[in-house]
C-alpha cells in the first residue's frame, strides 16, 4: 500500500531523514519509534504528501507521491480521501469556528452535499463521544477533547490509512486509554495505522511491527514490536532508553531515580 525507496529529506541543509526504505501493507499497525528529532514526524509528513523526498521515492498504491503528482487537484483529492493525519499539535489542526464545521471541513472539500455531511459528521461525533459539542469553539476545549475533535475530523471522511504523530502527548491517563482502545478498534476494522511515538508502552499495546529510527536519521531497525522492545541494547543505541531502563516480566519501564544503592530516599531495588 505504502512504499518508501531510499527517501531522504533535509530542512535547510539539516538532514531530517536519510535513505529510508520501507513497505507498509493494508491493515497493518506500525509504530515509528525514535528519540526526539530522529525523523519520525518527517516520515509521517512524507507519507501524507506534505513534504516530498529530496532524493528517493515515496509511493502510495504504486503511484508516486511527488510535488508534481500532488499539484493535480484530482489526484490530491483522491489521495487525501484515503489518508488521515492527526498532528502532534492538534491546535494547528483545528481551524474552524465550531466543532461541527471542523468535522465537516474535509467532507465539504471532498464535495459531499450538506445532508450527507450532516450524517457523516454526526457519525464521527458519536464515534468519538462528542455529540453535544457541535456548537463549541474548538479552541475552548480541553486537550483530550481537542484530540477527539481532530480524530473525528479525520475519521469523518473514512480514510483507509490513519497516521498519528505522538498521539498520547498531553493526554491524561483515562483519555490515553480511551484513545488506545479506539485506535485498536479502528485497526481491527481494517484501517491501516501508522503511529509516530517515543512511548514504548504505546508500541507494546498498539502495533505488531515497529520501525526504530536512529539519531543519524536513518531507519535503525524494522522488526516485530515485541522483539524490538526486548532488545534493550538496540534501544540504548538508538538513544531511546538509558541505563535505568529495565524489564519486569513482560513490561519495560524506567524510574525517575537512579537504582544505585545509596541508602538515600528514592533509591530502591527496582
Amino acid at each position: 500500500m505504502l512504499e518508501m525507496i531510499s527517501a531522504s529529506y533535509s530542512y535547510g541543509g539539516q538532514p531530517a531523514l536519510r535513505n529510508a526504505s520501507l513497505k507498509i501493507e493494508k491493515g497493518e499497525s506500525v509504530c515509528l519509534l525514535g528519540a526526539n528529532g530522529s525523523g519520525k514526524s518527517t516520515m509521517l509528513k512524507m507519507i501524507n504528501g506534505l513534504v516530498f523526498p529530496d532524493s528517493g521515492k515515496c509511493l502510495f498504491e504504486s503511484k508516486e507521491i511527488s510535488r508534481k503528482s500532488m499539484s493535480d487537484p484530482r489526484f490530491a483529492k483522491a489521495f487525501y480521501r484515503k489518508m488521515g493525519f492527526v498532528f502532534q499539535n492538534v491546535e494547528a489542526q483545528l481551524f474552524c469556528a465550531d466543532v461541527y464545521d471542523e468535522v465537516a471541513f474535509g467532507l465539504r472539500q471532498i464535495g459531499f452535499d450538506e445532508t450527507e455531511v450532516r450524517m457523516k459528521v454526526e457519525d464521527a461525533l458519536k464515534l468519538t463521544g462528542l455529540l453535544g459539542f457541535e456548537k463549541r469553539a474548538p479552541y475552548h476545549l480541553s486537550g483530550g477533547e481537542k484530540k477527539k475533535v481532530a480524530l473525528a475530523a479525520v475519521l469523518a471522511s473514512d480514510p483507509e490509512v490513519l497516521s498519528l504523530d505522538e498521539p498520547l502527548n498531553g493526554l491524561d491517563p483515562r483519555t490515553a486509554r480511551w484513545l488506545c482502545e479506539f485506535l485498536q478498534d479502528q485497526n481491527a476494522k481494517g484501517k491501516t495505522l501508522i503511529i509516530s511515538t517515543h512511548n514504548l508502552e504505546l508500541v507494546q499495546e498498539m502495533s505488531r511491527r515497529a520501525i526504530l529510527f536512529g539519531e543519524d536519521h536513518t531507519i535503525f531497525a524494522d522488526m516485530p514490536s515485541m522483539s524490538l522492545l526486548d532488545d534493550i541494547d538496540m534501544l540504548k543505541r538508538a538513544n531511546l532508553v538509558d541505563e535505568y531502563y529495565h524489564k519486569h516480566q513482560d513490561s519495560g519501564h524506567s524510574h525517575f531515580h537512579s537504582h544505585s544503592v545509596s541508602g538515600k530516599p528514592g533509591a530502591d531495588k527496582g
Partner: protein
Amino acid sequence: MKSSKKPSPSRGGLKNDAFVDKSLITFISVLSIIRAQDRQDSWIDRVNAFYKLCCSLFLIVLVALSRSPYFVFAVISVHLLAVALLKTASMKRVLALAATAFGFSCLMIAPAFFMGKAGFASLIPVKALASALIAGMLSLVKFQELTSALKRLHAPDFLLMVLDLSIRSLVMLGEFSLETLQALKMRRLGGRGGGYRSLAGVGGTVFLKSKEMSEEMHQAMVCRGFAGTYRPMGKLGFGLANAGWVLATAGLAALFFFT
C-alpha cells in the same frame, strides 16, 4: 552581624513591571472578550447574523443619507430599546461605543457650533450616535457567524478564511503571549531595566510562533483536501426573532422615505 537588608525594587524596575502588568491586562481583556462571545445567550443571538448584517448596513446607509432628525431619532430610539433588552455587559459595551462616537463628533463640530454656523452639521453627532448604536449591536454578533453571513453576501473565500483564521490565531497567540509575559514577569522579580527590551523579545517569539502555526495549519488544511474553497456554512432560518428584526428595519426604512 548579617545584613538583613531586603532587595528593594528600583523605581525603574517598578515602572517596567507596571508596563508588563499593563500588557498582561490588555491580553487578558482581549482574550476574555473573544471568549465571552462563546457564552452569549441573549435574545439578540436568536437573530441570524445574515439579517443583522444586511439590516445594519442598510440602516447605516440610510442614516448617512438622511436629512431628517425625526428619522435619525427614530433609529436611535429603536436601538436604545434593543440595547435595554441586552445583558448588562453587552449593554455597557454598546453604550460605551456610542457615547465615544457621540462625544468625539460633538468635539469635532464644537467650533462651528460656537461660531453659529452649525446648520445641518448639528445633525452629525446624532448621526454618529445612531451609526455607533447600529455598529455596536452588530459587534455583538459572534465572529464565526459574521463570516458565515459574509459568505452569503458573496464575500471572497480568501477574505473569509483570513477572518476566521485571524480570530482563531488571535486566541491561540494571545494565550501564548500571555504565558510568555507571565514567565517574563516571574523571572524579572521586579528587577531593574530591560522591560521594554524583554517585551520586544516576547513579540519576536510570538512572531516566530505565528509563522510556525500558520505553516502547520496550512498543512492540516491540505491534509483534509483544502484546495482554495472555504465554505463556512450555517442554517438560514426565518424565525420570529429574524422576522421582528427585519420588520423593525423595514419600519425605519419607511420612515426614511416618508419624512
